[in-house]
């Protein structure tokens, strides 16, 4: 059931309205690709994008973020936390990335409440745009049950099939939150859905179900067990011999949330900031502990760890897989190591 129907120009007008009180981050074209980037006006966005090279994660969990400022002096050591609470709107977020944000929401709010993430997240309005077909080859979002996002966005827009009346793309809008509902209705944007719109939306949904192929011969719910049996597989070693341990797979993943902390000192040497920067389990130094002991010193152990995290451990702990099937890791890997291929090879082995 749709809540509203808006044309693309009406949606852009809505974004301009959001821009009155929020920073806008959405798909922009750069070096022949699309990236999520800041814009001040909606017409700088390209809503007809297929996919963005990186996810919008950096807007919520920056690659390098100040956690607190510190100062030493006659009064001892003093710290003051730094939170970014400036209102933000993420526009044009696809279901995979919305599901990834939902996972980050859980991770950063369950055992360790992470105010640095949550303060930004609370101030974030999400305009989702659904994918009628896979955005590019190699994705396996359907297998990860992440090619739909019924929750997570404030408003979710699905491009409806053309109705022959207008050339403008029309979106069927579903409100995901009260904030989304209030915002759209208060702006009087678009129209209530007609019977034809509802029919078009049903057709959209059934077309979409056919458009996404299955890429892994296992249900995502069965992957933990498959991996359980694959601990000693020869695949890890055989694949990881090519691995550069460069961490590109981790750092381009929308669900990876590991970070490292370090201090940045001012030149006065008496004050500075504690920063956190993205880290990744494929990097060699990730698991080094005191005494220089590395408890995952081998690339094969690191590769297995990543795949276990994505399809087993996070699933067992959070109820949803740690992977949304966006295939950014696979595309980022200059050694051409592919996670979806790994799942398939393991499925063949057992």
């Amino acid at each position: 059931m749709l809540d509203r129907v808006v044309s693309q120009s009406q949606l852009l007008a809505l974004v301009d309205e959001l821009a009155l009180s929020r920073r806008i981050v959405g798909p922009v074209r750069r070096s022949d690709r699309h990236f999520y980037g800041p814009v001040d006006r909606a017409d700088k966005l390209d809503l007809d994008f297929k996919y963005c090279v990186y996810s919008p994660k950096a807007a919520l969990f920056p690659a390098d973020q100040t956690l607190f400022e510190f100062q030493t002096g006659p009064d001892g050591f003093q710290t003051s936390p730094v939170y970014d609470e400036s209102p933000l709107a993420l526009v044009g977020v696809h279901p995979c990335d919305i599901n990834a944000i939902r996972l980050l929401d859980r991770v950063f709010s369950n055992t360790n409440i992470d105010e640095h993430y949550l303060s930004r997240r609370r101030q974030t309005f999400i305009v989702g745009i659904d994918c009628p077909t896979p955005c590019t080859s190699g994705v396996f979002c359907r297998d990860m049950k992440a090619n739909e996002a019924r929750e997570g966005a404030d408003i979710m827009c699905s491009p409806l099939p053309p109705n022959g009346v207008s050339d403008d793309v029309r979106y069927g809008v579903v409100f995901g939150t009260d904030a989304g509902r209030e915002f759209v209705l208060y702006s009087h944007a678009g129209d209530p859905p007609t019977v034809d719109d509802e029919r078009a939306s049903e057709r959209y949904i059934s077309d979409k179900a056919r458009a996404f192929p299955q890429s892994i011969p296992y249900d995502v719910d069965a992957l933990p067990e498959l991996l359980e049996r694959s601990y000693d597989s020869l695949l890890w070693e055989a694949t990881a011999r090519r691995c550069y341990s460069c961490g590109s797979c981790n750092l381009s993943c929308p669900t990876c949330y590991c970070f490292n902390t370090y201090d940045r000192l001012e030149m006065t040497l008496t004050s500075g900031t504690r920063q956190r920067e993205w880290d990744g389990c494929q990097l060699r130094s990730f698991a080094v502990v005191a005494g220089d002991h590395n408890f995952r010193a081998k690339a094969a152990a690191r590769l297995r760890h990543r795949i276990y995290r994505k399809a087993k451990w996070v699933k067992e702990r959070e109820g949803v897989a740690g992977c949304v099937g966006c295939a950014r890791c696979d595309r980022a890997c200059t050694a051409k190591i592919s996670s979806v291929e790994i799942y398939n090879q393991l499925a063949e082995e057992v």
Partner: protein
Amino acid sequence: MKPRIAIFSLTSCEGCSLAILELEDCLLDILGAVEIVNFREGMTERSWDIDIGFVDGAVSTPEDMKEIEHFRECSKVLVAIGACATHGGLNTLKNYQDESDYRKYVYGDQAARFPTIPAQPLSGVVDVDYQLPGCPMVKEEFLEFVKVVLTGRTWHLPEDPVCVECKRNGTLCLYEKGIMCLGPVTRAGCNAICPSYGAKCEGCRGVVHDEALKAAGINLREQYDVDLQDVLADLRMFGAYQEKTLP
């Protein structure tokens, strides 16, 4: 007492020691915390009682040999700055050529007046306490190093490859454009500046670890249709890759 600092140059363009002068904004702050006692690019008075000696340039002449041994003796801590000092740098290109050839095309009929030896990093001749690689060295890294030393912390070079910085910066990977970039095998710390301008990494900060080099050998043979010699030539440019063979 303020640490006494010296900056020396061997065979190089002296760009790295000039880079220190370029830190104008912070230089005054640095001067507040240290005392610069010997610096050809920036002062005339010189002293040889040195706490930290920074050296740029490779050991490439018999004269360099003598100088580096002297610098080592006079400096409590010796720091190699820039690719020439840490890896031999561009100077090592001559090591792959015939000596009489390059002497002739560089010095012409004066060649006999300029004795030369195969170029090598400082560590080939003396013990080096710290290395700050890159061509040129990274100014920000130099500053961080100075701060770490002044506060008595432990200095670590980044142990990750350049790709990590591309990802943090949100740069499009050059492999997506079919360009063989050396980022996966090169030590980070430059903030992936070359890829951020669309130029491939040429490994000026040296190989990050042998495992990555080994993976490169396998990938270049099995996954890419490229001429291994071209990639090796790239790796040799700044001396990142010398006697080691791709496994």
